[in-house]
C-alpha cells in the first residue's frame, strides 16, 4: 500500500512539474509579443519597461526565466498587470464562491444521475429508458452558457422566481446564498447529469450480466435488493473515478462559463475578466491552480480508491 501511495505521489509531482513547464511555454515563450510591456503594468513608460525587461531576465536563458516565474507563483508574488494585485490572494478570495457553486451542483448532478441512470438501466429498451436517454443526450449537447442565459431569462425575468446575479456568501445569509445559487446549480448539473446517467446505465447493464448477480438472484434475493446492493453499488465505482476528474475540472476553471453569466465572483470569473484585459498573470495563476487541483484531487481519489480496494490494500502482489 505504501509503495503504491509513494508511486502515485511521485507520479503526481512529475505531472505537476510538466504542467508548470507547459504553462511557462504558453505564456512566456509562444506569444509573439514582448511580455515586459504587459508586466510593467498600465502605467508603464519605456524606462519602466526596460527596467522590467532586465528584471525579468528576458535576456536570460529560458530555464532561468522559468525558475523566476515558478518562484513568483509559489511565493505568491505573482501580480496582475491590470490591477497590480496579488493573483494568489484573488484566487483564494474567489474560492468560496466557486466551491459553493461546484459542490452544490455536484450533489445535484450525482443524485439525479444515479436516479436517472438506475431507472434507465432497469427499464432498458422501454419508454422510460428512451425518454431519459433523449433527455440526457439533449443535456450534453447544450452549451452551458446558453442554458444559463435561457434559465436567467425565464426564471429571473419572465417569472421573477430567483435573483439575477451575483453571489451572497454562505456566512452572510444561507437562504439568500442558496437562492442566488439555484439557477447556477441547475445549469452546471444539466450538463453532467446527462453524461453520468448514461455511463451509469451502461455500467449497470454490463454488471447485470455478471455471474455474481445471477447468483444473488438464484439465492432468492428480492429483485430490488439485487439491483441496489449488487448492481448499483458495483456500477458506481467507475463513476467515482470520473467524478473525481470532473469535480476537479469544474473547480479548476470549468465553472467559468456559469460564473460569467450569473456574475458569481469565483475563480472562474476572475479568469474570465482577465481575458478582456489581456491580463496574463491571473490566467497563469488560475491555469496552474486548476491543473494542480485536478491532479492533486485525482491522486487523492486514486489513493482512497485503492485503499478501499482490498486487492491493493492487502498486498502489492495481489494487484499485479
Amino acid at each position, binding site marked *: 500500500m505504501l509503495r503504491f501511495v509513494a508511486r502515485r505521489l511521485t507520479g503526481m509531482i*512529475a*505531472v505537476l512539474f*510538466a*504542467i508548470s513547464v*507547459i*504553462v511557462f511555454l*504558453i*505564456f512566456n515563450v*509562444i*506569444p*509573439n*509579443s514582448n511580455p515586459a510591456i*504587459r508586466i510593467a503594468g498600465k502605467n508603464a513608460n519605456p524606462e519602466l519597461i526596460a527596467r522590467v525587461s532586465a528584471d525579468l531576465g528576458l535576456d536570460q536563458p529560458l530555464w532561468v526565466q522559468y525558475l523566476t516565474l515558478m518562484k513568483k507563483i509559489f511565493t505568491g508574488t505573482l501580480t496582475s498587470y491590470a490591477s497590480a494585485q496579488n493573483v494568489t490572494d484573488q484566487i483564494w478570495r474567489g474560492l468560496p464562491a466557486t466551491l459553493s457553486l461546484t459542490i452544490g451542483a455536484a450533489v445535484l448532478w450525482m443524485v439525479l444521475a444515479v436516479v436517472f441512470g438506475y431507472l434507465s438501466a432497469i427499464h432498458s429498451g422501454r419508454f422510460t429508458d428512451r425518454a431519459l436517454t433523449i433527455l440526457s*443526450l*439533449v443535456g*450534453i*449537447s*447544450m*452549451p*452551458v*452558457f*446558453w*442554458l444559463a*442565459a*435561457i434559465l*436567467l*431569462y425565464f426564471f429571473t*425575468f419572465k417569472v421573477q422566481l430567483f435573483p439575477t446575479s451575483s453571489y451572497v456568501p454562505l456566512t452572510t445569509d444561507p437562504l439568500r446564498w442558496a437562492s442566488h445559487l439555484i439557477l447556477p446549480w441547475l445549469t452546471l448539473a444539466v450538463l453532467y447529469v446527462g*453524461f453520468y446517467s448514461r*455511463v451509469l446505465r*451502461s455500467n449497470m447493464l454490463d454488471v447485470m450480466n455478471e455471474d455474481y448477480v445471477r447468483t444473488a438472484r438464484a439465492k432468492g434475493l428480492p429483485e430490488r435488493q439485487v439491483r441496489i446492493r449488487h448492481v448499483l453499488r458495483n456500477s458506481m465505482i467507475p463513476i467515482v473515478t*470520473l467524478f473525481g476528474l*470532473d469535480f*476537479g*475540472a*469544474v473547480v*479548476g*476553471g*470549468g465553472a*467559468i*462559463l456559469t460564473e*460569467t*453569466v450569473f456574475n458569481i465572483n469565483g475563480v472562474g470569473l476572475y*479568469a*474570465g475578466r*482577465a*481575458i*478582456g484585459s*489581456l491580463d*496574463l498573470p491571473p*490566467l*497563469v495563476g*488560475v*491555469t496552474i491552480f*486548476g*491543473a494542480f487541483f*485536478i*491532479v492533486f484531487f485525482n491522486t487523492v481519489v486514486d489513493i482512497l480508491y485503492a485503499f478501499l480496494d482490498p486487492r491493493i490494500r492487502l498486498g502489492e502482489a495481489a494487484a499485479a
Partner: protein
Amino acid sequence: MAAPFSEVEVADEPPLPTGVPLATIQGRSPWYLAGLRLRRNKVALAFGGLFIVIVLLCLAAPLWADHVAHTTPDANHITDTIDVGGTQVDIVSPDGTPIGPGLRGQYLLGADQNGRDVMVRLLYGGRTSLFIGVVSAAITTIVAVVVGLLCGYYRGWIDAILSRVMDVVWAFPVLLLGIALGTALAVGGLSLGFTTLAGDSVWIPILIIGLVYVPYMARPIRGEVLALREKEFVEAAVAQGKGSVRIMITELLPNVVSTIIVFFTLNIANDMLLESALSFLGAGVRPPSASWGTMIADGYQTIYTAPHLTIIPGLMIVLTVLSLNVFGDGLRDALDPRAKIRLEH
C-alpha cells in the same frame, strides 16, 4: 485479412457432389453488417440526416446572402429601411430597436442592433463553427492516431514519454487551456516558423481546440493498439519481415478504423461546444466575425427584450451537436455492438 471483431466467419465450403443445386452462401464483410445495423437504427439515421441538412444549409450561406437577403454577414444597415407589406420600415428604429423576425427574404429572423441580418449571420456563423469543429476534429484525429499507434506498437520508452505528455495535457481543464492559449496568442499572434498567424486568425482556435482534445482520443486508440499488437496476425506480419511502419499502417490501422470513425464524429460535437464557449468568452472567434458562440454573446446583451437573438444560435448548436451525438452513438452500436469503444469524457 480476418478482422478481430468479425461476426461471421467465412468458412471454406467442401466441394459438393455435382448435380446438386448450390445455394450460394455469400460472405458478408463486417462493414456490410455494420451498415445493415445502422440502417435499422432509424433514429440515428434521422439525426445523421439532420446534421447533413444543417451542413448543407450553412454551405448555402452565400446563396442565401446574395440572392435572398441581399447583404453580407458583417454589413451594418442601421439607418436603412426595407419594404414590409408596402410600407418602409426602419431596420433599426430611431430609439435603437431592431426589426423582429418575419416571413420575408430579408431579415427572416430579424436584425440585431447593428442592423445586420440575423439569418445571414446564422448561416455564415454556422459555416465558421462547423469549419472549426470539423477541421479541429480532423487535426485531433490525425495526431491521436499517430500517437496511439506509436505508443501501442513500440511501447517502451516512446510509450512512456508520449503517455506522460498525454497525461499532462489531460490534466488541464480543457476550457481553461483553450482560454489561456487563446488569450496569450491574441496580442501578437503565433509564429510558426514558416508563417505567422495573426491574433484574430480563425486557425488559432482551430489549432488550440484540435490539440486540446488529443489525449481523449489517443488513450483509447493506444489501448486498442496495445491489445491488437498481441494478436497472431501481427506476429505473422513481423515474421514475414514487414517493416514497423507498414505493419502499423496496413495491419493495425484498419482495425482501429471503426474506433476512429466513432471518435471523430463525437469529437466534432465536443469541438463545436468548445469553440462556442471560447467565442462566448472572447478567446475564440473574434468580433465582428459571426460564429454561433459570438452570436450568443451578442444576443445575451439584449436577452430580456430580444431573446430570439440568443435562443436561435444556441438552438442551432444544440441541434447540430445532438445530431452528431445520436448519430455517433448509432455508429458505435453498429460498428461494435459489444460496446468496446467508450469515449472518455
